[in-house]
Structures are given as structure tokens and as C-alpha cells.
């Protein structure tokens, strides 16, 4: 949660802007869902190619649609 708070602050123009606990939790959860979805879709693509190792190529194949889904 603190890491996410720090991430959000990177983009604030006004140093006094704060993020309350709920917003931090929600953002942390959203990013966790995003990471797991990216990993799962890339893993599924590797499986479709009968591979056990998930490589960058598999991430690149699912990336356009993944970014449009968030």
C-alpha cells in the first residue's frame, strides 16, 4: 500500500496532494489484478504454443488487447 502511495505521488504536481487509505488500497488491488491478468494471459499463450517458459514474446502478443482492457 505504501509502495502504491509512493507511485501515485510520482505523478502529483502539487506536493500537498494526499491519497487516503481506501484509495491506496483500491489502487493496490487494481494493480495486482492488472499484473496477474498480464501474467495469466501471457502464460496461457505460452501454453497454447506448448511451452512451459513464458517469454517476452508471449507478453507482446497479448499486450495490445491487455492495455485496452484496463
Amino acid at each position: 500500500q505504501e509502495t502504491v502511495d509512493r507511485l501515485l505521488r510520482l505523478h502529483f504536481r502539487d506536493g500537498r496532494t494526499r491519497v487516503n487509505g481506501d484509495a491506496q488500497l483500491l489502487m493496490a488491488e487494481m494493480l495486482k489484478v492488472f499484473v496477474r491478468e498480464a501474467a495469466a494471459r501471457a502464460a496461457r499463450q505460452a501454453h497454447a504454443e506448448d511451452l512451459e517458459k513464458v517469454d517476452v514474446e508471449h507478453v507482446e502478443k497479448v499486450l495490445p488487447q491487455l492495455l485496452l482492457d484496463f
Partner: protein
Amino acid sequence: QRLKAAVHYTVGCLCEEVAEERDVQFSKQTIAAITEITFRQ
């Protein structure tokens, strides 16, 4: 850089959860790629 390392570590842990569930392995570069995408997202 310390923040990116923290995100990178967290992404690595999440990828390992998915790897276990789906019986795959993620290459180091793949985990770094997902970290970069998440960081930019």
C-alpha cells in the same frame, strides 16, 4: 530506482503465484517486462 525495485519485487511475487497456478515459469525478462508495463500503466 528503489521504487521500481519495490514494484519489480512485488510483480515477481505475483508472477510466481500465477506460475504455480498455471504450471509455467516466467523468464527474468518477462517479469521485468510486466514490471515496466505496470510502472507505466
